[in-house]
């Protein structure tokens, strides 16, 4: 159970960290989603900030104190919030962008409701068998996950950089043929 709990903690933390990072870069898509779910416009931005901050806090708490009821409740609360958003969008039959992992994600709906189950399972596994890690072990896991996320983004940047270079060089070839003004 301890091994399973460690895997659940790492996976939960990585997913929540990724979601928080993508939202943190630009809160406006998340605020727009919250507004479309029926929250008044003036509260949408604070709500977007709170959701992002809660994801970050729970992600870190899952690594450092997975054994506490507070952390496990945090996972369930966030998952419940996501499922509620999915349910509202599904009930209205509207295509509301999820922006779960930043702008460009799919629409809210059944996926978020179904995802409630694995979230709940992760919280349950932590409840049943998560040991309290040492500060060094938790910090090491935090560092590894963070470096992994940075590396994934770094590879995406490298690919985009190579494509942009190709586009630039290609465009450069056409300059001599463009009409002069």
């Amino acid at each position, binding site marked *: 159970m301890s091994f399973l709990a460690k895997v659940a903690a790492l996976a939960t933390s990585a997913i929540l960290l990724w979601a928080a990072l993508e939202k943190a870069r630009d809160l406006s898509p998340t605020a727009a989603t919250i507004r479309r779910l029926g929250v008044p416009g003036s509260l949408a931005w604070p709500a977007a900030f709170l959701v992002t901050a809660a994801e970050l806090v729970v992600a870190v708490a899952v690594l450092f104190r997975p054994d506490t009821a507070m952390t496990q409740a945090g996972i369930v609360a966030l998952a419940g919030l996501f499922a509620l958003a999915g349910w509202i969008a599904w009930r209205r039959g509207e295509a509301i962008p999820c922006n779960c992992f930043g702008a460009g994600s799919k629409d809210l709906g059944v996926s978020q409701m179904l995802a409630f189950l694995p979230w709940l399972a992760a919280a349950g596994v932590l409840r049943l068998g998560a040991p309290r890690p040492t500060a*060094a072990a938790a910090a090491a896991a*935090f560092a590894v*996950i963070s*470096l992994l996320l940075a590396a994934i983004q770094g590879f995406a940047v490298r690919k985009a950089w190579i494509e942009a270079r*190709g586009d630039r060089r290609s465009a450069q070839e*056409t300059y001599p043929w463009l009409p002069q003004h």
Partner: protein
Amino acid sequence: MAAAALTATAVLALLLAVFFGALLEMFRDVRQLRDALGILDRPLSVDIGAAAGTRPSIHGLPRALDSAAAAIVLFLSDRCETCRALAAGVAKPLPENLWIVLEARSPDSAASFLSAHGLMPGAAPEERVVVDLAGEIAGHVGLNTTPICFRLQDGVLTHATTVPSSRYLTSILPMPIRLGGSSTRRSSYGNA
């Protein structure tokens, strides 16, 4: 102490991930602008229909291509500006596995195009340059746009793509691997 250092590393890595994400957005923005302007270095696949899997010679292309293990046949036109850019940018003499078919309105316009871009060093065009005066070859293959490159594998036409730039053309040229050398290198240029 170790925990603090690791946590600091994690925070820095998260910041780095955020910066990478912002940079990625910027690249995507620029790509969107280029897409709108139509200056993406993105080749488009061309459906060659019944020509796929056929021998080049039945379309009027040189018989030597029927025995080519791997080659590129680049269709250019004397009326296409991108074709001029490609002709100007291609290495001279032509790379070993590159053949050029030039659709031209007249013998004069063909000669003018070829000499302007160093593809007619003497009185005649280079050996792997074919002039398609009446558009017979292009018509037989079913081609109505340029620049297009056809890929040949084991003596048959396999598929075709548009050629947005000479950078792209260079990147798709077959590179035979020569054994016995100190390293893998691009095939030597020049006429066989």
